[in-house]
């Protein structure tokens, strides 16, 4: 079997298994390339009609192109779209300029998601994370339990050998399910090409720059690139050795450092 078909089969198996185990399930869609690929796989798994809600956590700081893309395809693909927002903090003008960037992420992403999970009584979430994205994600499991405080106890998680996934959890917990964990950035783009999956225009070069990873506009930096088509992105990635999230990494380190210094009375 062809490489991409093997990857696709594995993802679809996980998606169906998750839906079979948890009826109170939803998928998270950030509108980025990975979760849009996951969305595509979910559509394929259920023959075009996804039987669970698709959640977009809206910090209000996403690129306008992302909101346009979300609304266009939510309609076109008949999605049951839930937009989750931390309204209290949005009213209180939380943003990357107020407090630390870590506080901003925590309020507008993590807490918004917590609220949404609580509101809809969700027991499991499908997420489009990949093992090669970041060091810590190498420890992720396909079925990954989170406790009521959202803590991921990565030293105490069930083994996953020979594709025997453990998918039961204690009462207060919810499961995170990662159907594309086994794909790399390059696999994703090759799959996008094969399936002709629509992607946000932000990924394609304009005036010598493009985004390799998209999120909130104030915290994303474009990379120097002339790749303006899927083919050109694939050939760029085949020769690149810089990290996909490098535009975001320094920001995260700075946010961490700032928080650490504050906790000791500096700044």
């Amino acid at each position: 079997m062809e490489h991409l078909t093997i990857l696709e089969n594995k993802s679809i198996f996980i998606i169906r298994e998750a839906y079979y185990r948890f009826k109170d399930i939803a998928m998270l869609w950030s509108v980025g390339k990975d979760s849009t690929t996951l969305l595509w796989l979910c559509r394929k798994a259920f023959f075009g009609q996804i039987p669970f809600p698709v959640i977009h956590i809206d910090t209000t700081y996403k690129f306008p192109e992302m909101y346009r893309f979300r609304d266009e395809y939510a309609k076109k693909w008949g999605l049951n779209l839930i937009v989750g927002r931390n309204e209290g903090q949005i009213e209180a003008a939380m943003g990357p300029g107020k407090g630390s960037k870590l506080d901003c992420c925590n309020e507008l992403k993590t807490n918004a998601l917590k609220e949404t999970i609580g509101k809809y009584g969700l027991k499991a979430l499908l997420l489009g994370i990949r093992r090669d994205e970041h060091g810590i994600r190498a420890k992720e499991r396909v079925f990954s339990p989170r406790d009521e405080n959202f803590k991921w106890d990565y030293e105490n998680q069930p083994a996953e050998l020979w594709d025997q996934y453990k998918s039961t959890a204690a009462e207060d917990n919810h499961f995170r399910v990662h159907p594309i964990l086994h794909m790399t950035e390059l696999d994703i783009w090759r799959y996008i090409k094969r399936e002709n999956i629509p992607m946000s225009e932000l990924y394609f070069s304009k005036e010598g720059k493009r985004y390799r990873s998209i999120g909130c506009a104030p915290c994303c930096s474009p990379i120097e690139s002339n790749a303006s088509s899927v083919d050109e992105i694939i050939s760029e990635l085949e020769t690149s050795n810089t990290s996909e999230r490098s535009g975001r990494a320094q920001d995260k380190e700075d946010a961490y450092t700032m928080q650490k210094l504050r906790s000791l009375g500096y700044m």
Partner: protein
Amino acid sequence: MIHMNDTPKLLVIGLDGVPYTLITDYIEKGYLPNFKKILSGGFRLHQMDASIPDVSSTSWTSFMTGVNPGEHGIFGFMDLRPGSYKIYFPSSRDIQAPTIWDIIGGTVNNRNSALYGAYKTSINNRLRSIVLNIPQTYPAAPMNGILTAGFVCPDLKKGTYPEYAYNYLESIGYVPDVDAAKAAEEPDLFLKEVFSALEKRALAYDYFFDNESWDLFIGVITETDRLHHFFFDAARDQGHKYHDLFVSFYKRIDEIIGRLFTRFMDKTGGMGLFMTMSDHGFTVLRQEVYINSLLREGGFLKINKQKEYFEQIDTGTKAFCMDPARIYVNLEGRYPLGSVSAPGKKDVIRELKDMLVSLADNNGNPVINTICENGDLYQGPSSDKGPDLVCLANDGFDLKGTLKKEEVFGKGQFSGMHTRYDAHCILPGNIEMGVRLHIENLAGIILNYFSKERTWNT
């Protein structure tokens, strides 16, 4: 079993923020039997001066490079990008001078320093070092040996070299730092973490001590500093809720050091050089003093609250302060909104000094002990990057560079503050400095030990 080696070995235990005076007191009280034993065996406890400013990032960099901030280029945890008010956090990549492990390990690359120049020809540069938890070493640069970075270390993997050392640290649940944000709201949990982080460090030190070959071993304990920031008032107050816990933490450190000392002496047949040291001292914090509020009151600083951090500095600003008490004149040409001309700088410095020396609290106690000018403190190619003035406070007054406060005096959750004059160092008694010990001297002592032309014997 005694291993006699051709090359000498050196063990440094760094104790972040552990004061000379507290060690002296605790030895007298009988809390530190191992320290006492070491000192009775031919070692001497020195009171030592830290760098100026006496923050960990600067002082540890002075320790590991053996040169002043004007040469190594680290003046604090935070600095401004040249020609702007944009903040950044200097990392190991910003250190301009080679470290001791670079010098003895042959990884100096193209850096230079006065100290390196002095030892370049006489040093054996194939020596292997284990360097654990020294602040300001993130990200870990390739070196001859093992390094895991201390504060601030956002990513243990990037903070550790080589990768197999990271894999080991990760496997034992080693944490680069405790979560100090917990200290105020959940003090018991914070203290539990402080003890547990110390145990992980001790475990890692034992492991690398036994399983790696090395010539220089530096293990730093930073939990002392964290404990002191929040609970230094418990150090001598027997009625304090956390006094016993504070003392028991020191007793545990004493055990760890006693064990490492004995094993080191066994390993080297009593021939190795053993040293403990700290990057600054600590004293009880009575009041925080917000220098930028004072500068605002004195008309030196104008703030635009629409912006953030130091980009708040507005037109008409003559001077501003960054942690802890680094004062910069807002000079034309140096900063985008610079309003002081080069010839006018002298007057601004005089006005600043006049205001600062007369600063007193409500009871009339003077706040500032000494005001140093850049030229008194820093020599070297990075001196120009340094502050124009640095204030040293009298004990009890913790000088702060925050822009967020309106008032000049305040008190937060912290009960301890750094002191420059009360760092400590334990050295073999036969190493005579002739002058009061300064943290910048230690790298020279270490290099001298590994040098072919060693000027003393152990």
